[in-house]
């Protein structure tokens, strides 16, 4: 069997053949064109200025530090700081709802609810809103999995309901067009629970395989329907399956069960001229990074430094095989301007190699002072030549 070549050179060749006319050197490049050049190690100025956003409380805290009152959401913050963005083809790759969202308990401090997938969770009304505290998970065994398997039917009405209307807007935006890449283990983790999904491959390997296969089938079927209709520049999935101690499932199991699906998806993308494939996974993903790279998932995001996913280490180990979005340690933004400068200088050689869109390695927390964040954005423009016009 012929093995697909996912080297940077091979991908570049495909891109040149697929899209030869778009990157005119004499005209100002669109953000979309700049993105493509950046991700294929070509010279580009300015570099796309992408970021991951902010935790809910951050903008409110910054408004007490001088952020204008009109900056109340992420879109406004992006305008203010001159951050650029991508657009996403609106395909729903999650399970269809299996129940009504129900509030089970509400006090002055917290809300306990059952969401539309049957997960019972608690959120605090005050302080930082990040991952909820999960109290109960609906999938416990093969019997309780059955309704979710049905809810992952690629033909479920509504999955593609917004695609047609969105296509003209996406194409007119001039921004990179991203196909959603779904989830192979992350959503199952949300349905099954961290501790159970971690041991499920040991206790019931057939069920774990079936669950991942179901999600993989949905992703591939959906992409086969959407990719012929619009040229996408990248595909971005979501997993969030790593912690600072590594992945939620054994790396060998991950390679055996999820690896072949990443390969199928990446091959499908390449056949449609999309050569940038990433998935959002926080934490320390070093134990599974080769599963990603070997199967064509060639871009890491958000490259969380303090957890152990260091862009400098990744580039030393994997060179141009690995493309990076993120990779600026948020702890430096908390620490101060000297720490920010040191962190940006530390990763600067990697950014200058190309294939690296530097940004904060997760949402910016509220303990980053606005002054530090502005300094970070200014330095990013000065040293890395990123685009976008700030309003401050």
């Amino acid at each position, binding site marked *: 069997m012929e093995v697909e070549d996912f080297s940077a050179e091979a991908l570049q060749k495909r891109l040149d053949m697929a899209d030869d006319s778009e990157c005119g050197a004499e005209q100002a490049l669109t953000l979309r064109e700049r993105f493509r050049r950046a991700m294929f190690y070509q010279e580009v100025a300015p570099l796309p200025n992408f970021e991951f956003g902010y*935790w809910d*409380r951050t903008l409110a805290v910054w408004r007490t530090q001088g952020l204008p009152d009109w900056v109340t959401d992420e879109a406004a913050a992006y305008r203010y700081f001159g951050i650029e963005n991508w657009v996403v083809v609106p395909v729903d790759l999650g399970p269809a709802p299996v129940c009504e969202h129900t509030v089970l308990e509400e006090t002055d401090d917290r809300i306990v609810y059952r969401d539309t997938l049957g997960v019972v969770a*608690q*959120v*605090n009304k005050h*302080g*930082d809103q*990040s*991952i*909820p*505290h999960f109290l109960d998970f609906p999938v416990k065994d093969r019997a309780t999995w059955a309704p979710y398997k049905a809810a992952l039917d690629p033909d479920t009405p509504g999955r593609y309901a917004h695609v047609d209307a969105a296509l003209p807007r996406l194409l007119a935006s001039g921004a990179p067009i991203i196909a959603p890449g779904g989830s192979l283990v992350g959503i199952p983790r949300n349905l099954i629970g*961290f*501790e159970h999904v*971690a*041991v499920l*491959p*040991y*206790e*019931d*390997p057939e069920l774990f395989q079936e669950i991942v296969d179901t999600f993989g089938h949905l992703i591939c079927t959906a992409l086969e329907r959407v990719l012929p209709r619009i040229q996408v520049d990248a595909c971005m999935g979501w997993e969030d399956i790593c*912690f*600072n*101690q*590594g*992945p*939620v*499932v*054994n*790396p060998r*199991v991950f390679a055996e069960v999820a690896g072949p699906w990443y390969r199928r998806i990446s091959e499908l993308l390449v056949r449609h001229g999309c050569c940038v494939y990433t998935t959002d996974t926080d*934490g320390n993903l070093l*134990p599974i990074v080769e599963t990603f790279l070997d199967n064509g998932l060639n871009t890491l995001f958000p490259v969380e430094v*303090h*957890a152990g996913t260091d862009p400098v280490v990744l580039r030393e180990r994997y060179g141009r095989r690995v493309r990076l979005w993120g990779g600026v340690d*948020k*702890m430096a933004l*908390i620490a101060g301007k000297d720490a920010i400068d040191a962190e940006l200088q530390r990763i600067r050689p990697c950014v200058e190699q190309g294939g690296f869109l530097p940004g904060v390695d997760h949402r910016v*927390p*509220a*303990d980053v002072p606005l002054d530090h964040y502005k300094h970070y954005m200014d330095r990013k423009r000065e040293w890395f030549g990123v685009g976008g016009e700030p309003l401050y």
Partner: protein
Amino acid sequence: MSELLEQIATCIERGKVNAASPYPPDMRGQEGADELVKKAIEQGVPAGDILSQAMIVGMGRIGKKFSNNEVFVPDVLMAAKAMQAGMNHLRPFFDSGEAVHKGTFIIGTVQGDLHDIGKNLVAMVMEGGGFKVIDLGVDVSAEKFAQAVKDNPGASVGLSALLTTTMVNMEKTVKLLKEQAPDTKVVVGGAPLTQEFANKIGADAYSPDPQGALDYLTAAVS
């Protein structure tokens, strides 16, 4: 170590819960920690020996492998399940005093933080390491930690946080605990933490992984 105790240690290290468990595949059909601990008790092996010479040994092996990145979270969880299966047979001996814990360990995530995955892992490893664990859950106030220490004199405390914005609440908790019971050992951990931060807030130790916390407190209480 007797052959039976070594078998128990191996079952716990490798996550062999019971005879019906399909994992690990090369031990399929063999007795697990559940059956072997029961057998050891029936043969008259002292409960304290089963705990200290077999179960804690097995958990210690997997914990060290985890610290060295030789195994991963799922492997620790399977070992903890095997440990739990064996501990179910030992509970009456703890009640009678025939088996004793190394000490009491109080753990929780600090106020404002709802993330309990790391906290739960540490609790499992500490229990597997011979400590009585009192899990206060998530979003625990400094006052609640202090009350738990008052109720359990001599207990050690573990504080966990995932967010940079909540790890600052550790400082308040450490301060209150040290004011109330200066000898209380406080270990802190969580994704955003560093040794430097632990030093700054006056914690006794920082550990990036569960085994580090266990090793520190085992040495501290011995």
